[in-house]
Structure formats: C-alpha cells, structure tokens
C-alpha cells in the first residue's frame, strides 16, 4: 500500500510539474500544455477492499462496504476510486442513523451512499491537480457511480470535493491500492439533512 499525506502529495506534484517543465521535448510539452506527465503512479499491493478493511480510520465505511456485499467488487479487477469519508465524517449523520445504515433495513441507503463516493478508474491526487491546473483552477467534475457528479475545486492548498447536492469535503489522504485508489475525505458527499421534497 502506498500512502501519502496531503502535504507530501502536493509537494511531489509540484516537483513533478517542475521537472516536466524543465525536461524539454515531449515530456516538457505535455506538462506545460496541461498534459499529465505525472500520470504514472505506483500501485500498492493491497486491493481497495483490503485497504479499507485494514484502515481503522475508515472502519465505518469499510463496514458499510462489507455489509453491502461490495467486498468482491472492490477486491476484484476494478479499477475503482473510493472517496472515503473517515470515521469522523459520519458524525454529521449522528450515531442512530449511522448505526441504522449497518442494518438490513437500511442496506439500500448504505449502497446508495457508497455509490455516491465511488468513481470509475484510478484517480490520484496528482490527476486531480493536473485537471485543475489545466482548467486554470476552475472546477472539474467526475461522475460517481450513483450517477451524480463530484466536483473538484481548490481552496488554497486544499482540494475540495463537492457532491451534487452541495455536500463538501476536503481530500485528506491518498492510498494507492492494486486495483484502484482510496482518497480519504473529511465529510460525507451526500446530503445529511432531509430532502425538501
């Protein structure tokens, strides 16, 4: 498992961009013109499923994923990237609703929540940085497996991800798994208040 704290990832991204600019030739062209010369990423040994199960900070999400029967999928070929709310993010739901999501009666809700936090393919922090740079730091979007978009933007050094209904979270930490990636976020990307309809 390759794990990188946010500051480290940002530093690496900046260094890579700088290297790309200085390299000249095709690589330099790619980096300067908004390509992703930093595209190559080294996957870890664990699958997304195993990494979720082994990370105590993501225990709540990991339990929901297991209850939802997602173990096979997240342990398979993939690739999927999970924007994984840490345990603390579930506080916004409250204990009663969070515990309810673990039960059979609310399994469909748990699956809906999970789908809203998963995107297709491997998305690294560098990839998001590169997309934002290409857009001049205007927001960029990635469709989630629930069908709703996740929108990424900058707030100083931080990368903010926003769900379709306005739920916002910061990218905290990155885990590159063998079959995808986990981007830990500090809040849920679904509305935690009752829908107004």
């Amino acid at each position, binding site marked *: 498992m390759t794990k990188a704290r946010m500051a480290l990832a940002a530093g690496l991204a900046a260094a890579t961009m700088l290297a790309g600019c200085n390299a000249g030739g095709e690589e330099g*062209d*790619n980096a300067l013109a908004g*390509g*992703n010369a930093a*595209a*190559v*990423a*080294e*996957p870890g040994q664990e699958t997304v499923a195993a990494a979720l199960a082994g990370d105590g900070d993501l225990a709540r999400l990991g339990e929901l994923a297991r209850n*939802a*029967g997602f173990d*096979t*999928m997240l342990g*398979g*070929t*993939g*690739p*999927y*990237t999970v924007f994984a709310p840490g345990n603390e993010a579930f506080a916004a739901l409250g204990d009663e*609703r969070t515990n309810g999501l673990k039960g059979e009666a609310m*399994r*469909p*809700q*748990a*699956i*809906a*929540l999970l*789908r*809203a936090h*998963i*995107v*297709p*393919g*491997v*998305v690294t922090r560098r*990839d*998001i940085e590169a*997309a934002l740079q290409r*857009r001049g730091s205007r927001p*960029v*979007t*990635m*469709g*989630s*497996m*629930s*069908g*709703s*978009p996740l929108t*990424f933007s900058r707030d100083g050094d931080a990368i903010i991800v926003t769900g*379709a*209904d306005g739920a916002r979270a910061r990218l905290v930490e990155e885990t590159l798994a*063998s079959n995808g990636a986990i981007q830990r976020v500090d809040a849920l990307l*679904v*509305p935690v*208040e*009752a*829908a*107004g*309809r």
Partner: protein
Amino acid sequence: MRKLMLTLGVAAIAIAAPALSQGRGQGQGGGGDHKGGGRDHKADQGQRGQGAGHGRTARQGGGRDEARGGRGEGRGAGRQAMRHDNPGRGRDDDARGRGRDHGEDRARGPASARAKDVRRDVRDARAERRGRGRVERRAVLVTNPGNIARLRFAPDRAFVRGCPPGLARKNNGCLPPGQARQLLAERNWYGSWWPRYGDGNYRYWNGNLYRFEPSGSVAGFIPLAGGALWLGNSWPASYAYDPVPDYYRDYHGWDDAYDYRYSDGIVYGLDPESQLIREVSGLLTGDDWAVGGRMPEGYDIYNVPYAYRDEYRDTPDDWYRYSDGHMYRVDPTTQLIEAAIRLIV
C-alpha cells in the same frame, strides 16, 4: 528514439488489430488509427506493460488515413496472428497484410453467410477462452466501434409501473392502507441519495423506492440494490435487465458459474439453477461512449488504470479516459471520442 517508438507502435498496432478480431469475429486488418498498443498488460497481476508506440507518433506516421481507406475484416488472419501472437517479433507486416486481404474477400460474401460466421466465431472464442482459462490483458484499439459491448444506463428501465409482487393495487397505488400517507409524512432523509431517477417524489419502503404522484398515489417503484435486489432473493419478475456480455465477464473475471444481469448500474450474479441473486458483482457507469460522439460529462480527470499509464497519457492532442472496462481516446478541444480501446483480448 522517436523513430523507434513509431516503429514499435506500428508493430503493436498490426498485432493488436487481428487479435481483436479473434475475440469478436469482425476484426479489421490494416488498421492505422491506433494510438499504440501494448504488450501483454496484466493489470490485475501488477505487471507493467511493455507496449510501445505513442498515439502521437502513430498519427504522424499517417496511419489514420490509411486505416480509413483500407479497412477490411481480417478474421482469418486475426486467428492466425493470435496463435502466433508474440509481440515484438516482427510479424506486423504479415498480419496486417493478410488481414486486409481476407477482409476484402469476406466483404463480398452474402450477408447471411457472414452472420453465421460471426455466430460461429463467438462460440469458438468462448470455447477457446474456457480452454485457456484466462484472458490476455492488453490494450487493443477497436477498429470497428460496432463491436464494442456496452451496457448503458437507462433510467426508464429501472422504473416499474405497477406494484411489487405481493402487493395489490389499491386506491393509493400499491401500499397497505395508511402506508402511503405515513411515508409522505415522514422526513425524507434519503430521498436525494438516489439521484439517477430524476425529479419526482420518491420514498423508500421495504426494499423498493416508490414514486408518488402529486395526488399521493403510487405511480410505480424501483427495486433497489440491497433491498428487493439482494442476496437470496429472486429477480423481480417485472424488472427489466440486460444480460452481461462476455467482454465484461472476462474483463472483470466474473465467475462463469453465475448468470449475470445488469440493471441500474449494477451487475448481479445469479445462481443459474435457482435464479436467486448470489452476488453483487460490480458497478458500471453505463455511460454512453460512442466513437464519433461527444465524451460523456463527468470525465474531466484522467482515470486510466495503472498498467496503461505509461503509454496512454494525456497530451495536448489526446486525452484518455477509462470507463466500464474500456479506454477511450478523446480530442481535448472538441471533446469528441476518437477511438475505443479494449483492455483484454
């Protein structure tokens, strides 16, 4: 170095195109519209591909025009090339040339004969695949976009008009007396967690998501993953699904012991005897990636799997995006999809 890359790229192209035809029975020889193939990528085993050839170099070689002008179905040559497929051994000219010749011959045959050939090829491919025990993971440009096996998300198909099994239509729709009124009175905590279904007044109850008419009566329902669609349950009789093409099964390594059904972005594995749901096998976007069409929304960020990142990088001329077991080459300016790339052979 650049010339070397071009040469290797063309070699990979020539090998890749017939190899595609082996799997689908309609491969095209003489392809030149490739962005560089790869050699034996084994993404799931962590082995890095050794493929060479960059999209830009291939384009500079004039391959695109050649491909458009000289397409033909190279099924026979494809099978031959597959048997001898040994990337990097210089079989490119041979495979490419024969592919074009056979294609021209086949193109003149009666349509019914061609259809029979295609069916036979599919059966052959399955048999060969079972015999091999595993598929070969490498990137292969799809020269005939009609051969792409795609499962699309169709929101209309997720919605079932009428009542779930066991519930009779009442005055208020399908729900027991008082249930509809109670549901509508409750705080709708999760109504927006299922955004695919669009506007409407949706309420969850007992494994299904119900859509209410403004009058308060039930218009219909959507069986939900984790509820009505869950392990041990039968597939709802009135609920539409798509069978899952072999490509998806092979790409994901889904076990042949199950029947696989796709619905509403999820693939389920069913026991072929009992027809009970046994597995949540995978999530698919169901996005519409049609070569020549516009890239679907929600792919601003590069998301190519690890094994292909060395070769398929975004450049000012080309983007690459992954979706549902394929990669696609996109023009960054027009956002038009230029090519599809299979990830298994």
